[in-house]
Structure formats: C-alpha cells, structure tokens
C-alpha cells in the first residue's frame, strides 16, 4: 500500500500542473508602461477613410498584439484618463450631457478604434475638442479603447469594475452597456 500515492503524488501534482499552465500560457496581464519611442510615434499612423469615419489601425498596433482593447491595465488607465482629461464635463459617466451619450449604442462616427482614436486626437465638429496637444498617442489609444469598452454591446472580461465614487450607472464590467439601466 505504500507504493500507492503519498509523497511523490504530492510533489508531482504541485509541480507539474503549474508547469503545464506555463507551457500553455503567455503573459496574459502584461503591464507595459513605456512604449518604445518609435512605437509610440508609429501609433499615430491611423489610416482613416476620406469621410473621417472608419479606417485601419496603424500596423504597429497589430504587431503589439492589439493590447489596448484586451488589456485590463490599459482599459483602467483609459478610465483614469477619462476622468483626468475632463471627459465627464460633457459626456458624464457615459450617459452624455452637452456631449453625446457613449453608452446608448449610437455612434456619430462609428465605434471602431481608429475612428475613436481620431475623434479624440483631432476633435470633431460640434464641440468635441482635439486632445492631440494634451495627451500622448499611447494615452489616446488607452482612452479610445476605454470609451469603446464602455459602449460595447458585449461584456468583456477586461472591462474595469466600479469606481470608488458615487455611482451613476452600473460598472463597465457588469452588463453590455447599451442594456444597462440608467438612473
């Protein structure tokens, strides 16, 4: 009976299984805080359609592994920037005010990332200011991704949780935003 189980099992189970995770895994929640300057430069190369709506992201974005939309870290940074750069003044917590709502499912210029990036970077007619001189490109990507996550129809595992502030709507990770009840 001593040949059955015991020490070896314990060691094998505790060592081999995490190692398997490592084999199949990658760096799932990497927190890249410093894009290399050439990368940061290239992040600005958004090719937009002539009407200013829709386009393709810069090539470097794919090379980076599409970090902004899928990384919880970048999204939470985007959420911080949303507050820091006064987006709430016009858009509230996404419900909109003097600016359009970001969670009602209606996008004046389309919900794709390059468009959102351009909207923030260059501004839009009707009051949306340009942030190209106030934020770095990396930051604009983070903010654009956060805005997209906030208004997305499908919930995302990377979406931020509620803030430590008075609540005005369910947090981004709760429900697809458009179906979230407003109050």
């Amino acid at each position, binding site marked *: 009976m001593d040949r059955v189980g015991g020490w070896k099992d314990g060691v094998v189970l505790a060592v081999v299984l995490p190692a398997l995770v490592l084999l199949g895994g990658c760096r799932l929640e990497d927190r890249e805080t410093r894009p290399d300057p050439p990368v940061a430069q290239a992040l600005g190369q958004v090719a937009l359609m002539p009407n200013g709506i829709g386009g393709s992201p810069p090539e470097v974005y794919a090379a980076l592994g599409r970090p902004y939309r899928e990384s919880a870290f970048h999204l939470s940074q985007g959420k911080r920037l949303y507050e820091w750069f006064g987006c709430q003044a016009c858009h509230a917590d996404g419900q909109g005010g003097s600016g359009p709502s970001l969670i009602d499912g209606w996008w004046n210029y389309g919900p794709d990332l390059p468009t959102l990036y351009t909207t923030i970077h260059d501004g839009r007619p009707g009051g949306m200011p340009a942030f190209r001189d106030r934020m770095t490109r990396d930051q604009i990507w983070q903010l654009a991704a956060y805005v997209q996550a906030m208004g997305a129809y499908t919930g995302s595992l990377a979406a931020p949780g*509620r803030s430590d502030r008075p*609540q005005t709507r*369910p947090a981004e990770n*709760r429900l697809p935003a458009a179906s979230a009840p407003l109050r």
Partner: protein
Amino acid sequence: MKQDVVVDLSDLPMNGSGTASLTWWGTVAFMLIEGTGFALMISVYLYLGSLAPAWPIEAPPPEWGPGTGVTLLLLASLVPNVLLSRWAAARDLRKVRAGLLIMAVFGTAPLVLRVWEFMALDVSWDSNAYGSAVWMLLGLHTTHILTDLLETYVLAALMFTRHADNPRRFGDVQDGAMYWNFVVLTWLPIYACLYGIPRL
C-alpha cells in the same frame, strides 16, 4: 510490541446515534462555522450602519410583508421538523417518508416567498453599502435554505429506495432536522436586524 487484549468491544452497537454518531458532531461543527459566518455578516451590517449618518442609506426600510411571511413559514416548519426528528428516532419509516415530503414543501415555500422578500428590500445591491449588506445577508441565508432543501429532497428520494430501512438513514434524517432548526433559528436575529434596525 506484545499485545494483551483487555477490553472486548463485541457487544457495542454497529453504529452510533445522536452524540455517539460522528455525523452528528460534524453537523454541529459545520453549524459552528456557519453560525460564525452569520454573526460576522450581522456585524458587518451593524458596523456599516453605525458609520452611516442615516440608516438605511437612501432607501425606505424593507417592507414587512414577505419577510414576515417567510419568518412565519419557517417557524411553522419547526413543528413538522421536530415531529420528523422524533419519527426518525423511533425508526418509523412510513411516518418519516411522510415527514420528509412535508418538510420538502415547508422548505420550498419560504424559498419561493424569498423572491418577493428580495424585491421588498426596495434597494439594489449596487445602490449603496446598505443595499450590499442586506442583499449579502439575505443571500447567505437563502443559500442555507437552498442547500438544506436539496438535502431534504435527496433524503426523501432515498427513503423511497431499498436504502431506506437503515438506522444510518434515520440518523441522517435527524441530523438534517437539526440543521433545519439551525437554519430557522439563525434567521430570527437576521430578521430582527433587517427589519428592526432600519426602523429604530
């Protein structure tokens, strides 16, 4: 080492009942764990209440109706529950079968009424800390009703199989009944907390 037989155990019963049964002690230990959990959750409720300038926070006190209904149902269920325990002690299979079916009903009814009780809280868990505390307190207790109810269902089913006529089954029924008493008794302080404190 040389051995010398000094005690003969041959005549002992083949399983213990009541305090001579291991499952009885296990049930008591788990009740201690869960009782601590309830006590802590009530402390959380009272602690948050003591910090808030007004309690409940931006919500009316919960409506009396459904919660009181649940309380009455739970208290009423104690009668068949105690009877069931006695029948099990007397190893009366027919009555135990009937008792388990009654208890299955008496367990399901408050669970159904619980749905209205949650709505009668008049606050959502994500409204504020008061809402979070009452939902968690009520949720924790509902989980206990639910698990004990499942156990009752399984025991009831078991009692209609060939495994039924066995002193161990009757012991299980008794332990289940004891646990239901615990679920009912822990509800009383929670009820007092949820419905009394906001009206003080």
